[in-house]
């Protein structure tokens, strides 16, 4: 073959790139490649309803796309927020477009459990918004989850690196993620209205208070998280508070100090907004309008902080999850400990593995549980007769149980297509897998349930004590089932 030599080709022209001696030379490779024109018709079903713009026009903008004319073109992009929102809707619609029982179960079961708990325990878990304490409590119930969720929603979506590599602007990324966080805040506020609806109370005032707290926390979180992220990669000397956090020797924790403290101020802002919304000064619409205006004023600040932080923080964020290597001897993986000793051997193995994985991957599920449980048990011992204390303890420990259940379900989600396959090849049957996971989950939720049960037993109310153990068992059962459903095939 006497074709001109490709100047970029470095092969010896007697072998292709894989060492074969076929007549697939560098110059001759061009015809080997796929036809330059499409030689087939794309399946119409895949293209019938254009999701991201028509083949010739971008209907959501009304003007055609322009092709990148230069390799490093920096021309302004066409409204990527619209594009990302359409993507978001498409992804959300997947459960309806391609319904899968396991996926539905993984979502519906925890939601149903939480809603059921709020509905049935409505009398005792409903903050009384006619008092200042109740208003602030409701505000905190909205503000704390929103403040904590702000970080993963803003900076840790699974597609973050993919979208940045596509050149999506930081403004668009911020816009979509801020909307996600707002949707979470609104959904949470609505969810917390269930106890009021269940008791037949007018939910108008509680809803206004909850939404005010949610919106204020949302806006404050946008600013606080953006600034904390920027501080983390600024290279500046850590603050005294950050140094106190790492006690002087854990430098990675010290470096992440701003992120650790970031949810505090938004939570305080949310509680304050709730207090203001529920106060008697000025009419309610005016108070809400002021809170909305204040929150709206914070959004541009948040966008600026996010844009400043993202380019350097996003690559760094993945490394923040770094944990020191575990003991090489494998000493943490203990088979047949405690209640697990009655399980079949394979289920014991699953329990031991799941317990170690949960303990490392979702360390917060046990670390946060201890203080909640101990404080709750002490409160029961000291003032268990007060309905207010009982409601508070039930709410706090119930929320902790729900968070631990979420960690178990998250374990299942992380296993999609991986660990389950390992279990199958090891000959672990679904029943053993379920028993092992339930035992691991039960061990986790006992951290909350045992101190509570002990508190009630010491007070002489054995029924309430056993109720906590039963609640732990049921929570573990539901969480383990949802977790395996989330793991998929």
């Amino acid at each position, binding site marked *: 073959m006497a074709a001109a030599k*490709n*100047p*970029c*080709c*470095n*092969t010896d022209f007697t*072998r292709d*790139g*894989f*060492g074969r001696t076929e007549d*697939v030379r560098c110059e001759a*490779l*061009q015809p080997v*490649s*796929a036809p330059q*024109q*499409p030689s*087939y018709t*794309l*399946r119409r*079903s*895949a*293209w019938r309803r254009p*999701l*991201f*713009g028509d083949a010739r*026009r971008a209907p959501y903008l009304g003007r055609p*796309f*322009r*092709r*990148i004319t230069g*390799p*490093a073109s920096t021309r302004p992009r*066409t409204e*990527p927020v619209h*594009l990302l929102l359409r*993507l978001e809707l*498409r*992804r959300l619609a997947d459960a309806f477009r391609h319904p899968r029982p396991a996926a539905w179960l993984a979502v519906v079961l925890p939601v149903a459990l939480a809603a059921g708990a709020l509905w049935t325990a409505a009398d005792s878990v409903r903050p009384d918004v006619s008092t200042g304490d109740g208003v602030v409590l409701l505000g905190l119930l909205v503000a704390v989850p929103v403040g904590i969720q702000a970080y993963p929603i803003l900076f840790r979506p*699974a*597609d973050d*690196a*993919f*979208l*940045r*590599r*596509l*050149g*999506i*602007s*930081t403004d668009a990324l911020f816009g979509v993620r801020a909307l996600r966080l707002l949707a979470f805040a609104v959904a949470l506020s609505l969810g917390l209205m269930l106890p009021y609806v269940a008791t037949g109370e007018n939910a108008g005032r509680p809803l206004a208070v909850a939404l005010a707290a949610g919106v204020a926390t949302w806006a404050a979180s946008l600013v606080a998280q953006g600034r904390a992220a920027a501080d983390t990669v600024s290279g500046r000397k850590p603050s005294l508070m950050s140094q106190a956090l790492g006690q002087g020797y854990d430098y*990675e924790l010290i470096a992440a100090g701003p992120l650790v403290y970031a949810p505090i101020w938004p939570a305080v802002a949310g509680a304050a907004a709730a207090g203001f919304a529920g106060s008697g000064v000025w009419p309610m619409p005016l108070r809400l309008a002021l809170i909305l205006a204040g929150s709206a004023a914070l959004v541009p600040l948040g966008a600026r902080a996010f844009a400043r932080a993202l*380019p*350097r923080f996003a*690559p*760094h964020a*993945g*490394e923040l999850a*770094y944990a*020191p290597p575990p003991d090489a001897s494998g000493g943490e993986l203990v088979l047949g400990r405690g209640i697990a000793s009655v399980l079949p051997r394979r289920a014991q193995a699953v329990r031991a593995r799941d317990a170690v994985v949960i303990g490392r991957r979702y360390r917060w599920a046990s670390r946060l549980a201890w203080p909640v449980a101990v404080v709750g048990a002490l409160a029961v011992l000291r003032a268990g007769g007060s309905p207010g204390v009982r409601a508070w303890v039930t709410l706090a420990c119930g929320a902790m149980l729900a968070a631990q259940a979420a960690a178990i379900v998250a374990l299942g989600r992380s296993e999609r297509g991986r660990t389950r396959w390992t279990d199958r090849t090891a000959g672990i049957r679904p029943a053993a897998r379920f028993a092992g996971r339930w035992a691991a989950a039960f061990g986790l939720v006992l951290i909350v349930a045992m101190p509570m049960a002990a508190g009630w037993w010491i007070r002489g109310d054995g029924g309430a004590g056993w109720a906590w153990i039963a609640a732990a068992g049921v929570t573990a059962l539901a969480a383990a089932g949802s977790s395996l459903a989330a793991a998929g095939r």
Partner: protein
Amino acid sequence: MTDPALPLAVRGLRKKYRRGVVLSDVSFDVHPGEAVALVGPNGAGKSTLIGCVTADRLPDRGEVRICGADPFREMAAAAACLGYVPEQPFLYPELSVAELLRFVAAARGLDGAESSAETARLLALLGLAGAEGTLCRELSQGMGRKTAIAAALLHQPRMIVLDEALNGLDRTSAERLVAELDARRARGAAVLISSHDLDFLARWCTRALHLPAPGSWRALEGGAWEAWRRAPTLVGVSDPRKS
């Protein structure tokens, strides 16, 4: 350093993890039409280096320029120039192959008709014809990688970075991909490729960056490259095929 004609320029790159320094003052350029191999044993820092280039890892020190743009500051300009296939590519599990590629084309601001034609060509090239309607979560590993490759090449990037991208590809698709890369190199694109197939790298690439261990590196150029090509091995790691 800011020459936009240079697809990739790296200067004084340093990256340290808790366990120690992985990249120590790494500096190299990739010129138009070149294919630069990244070779080294597992854990030597190849993926970390690629991560620093593609702004997936934050270097402690040093500079990276993709077509003259800093990927950490000028994200859009760098992204327009870069086509990257990670070792474990991200695909939206809820989208079909066609939807994903349409999204990528729209996000990159490509002309609709042209990108559709290019999408169809790349799908045919990579043997994905007929899989346009398949959800990404239902793709096999190889098909998922092909989809990621199509997404990375769709916008005619000048700098193509492949991290173990040929793994899991069937032979025909791999040959066609190499041919496609050759054609793009002829048009001025450059390739930075990491692979453990040393024979392939020795035959196909124009030079290499050798990372024998964390914290050390050397450029294989000129005589050193020719010598390495004749017997491609990793220092300190025996190649079972050679024994």
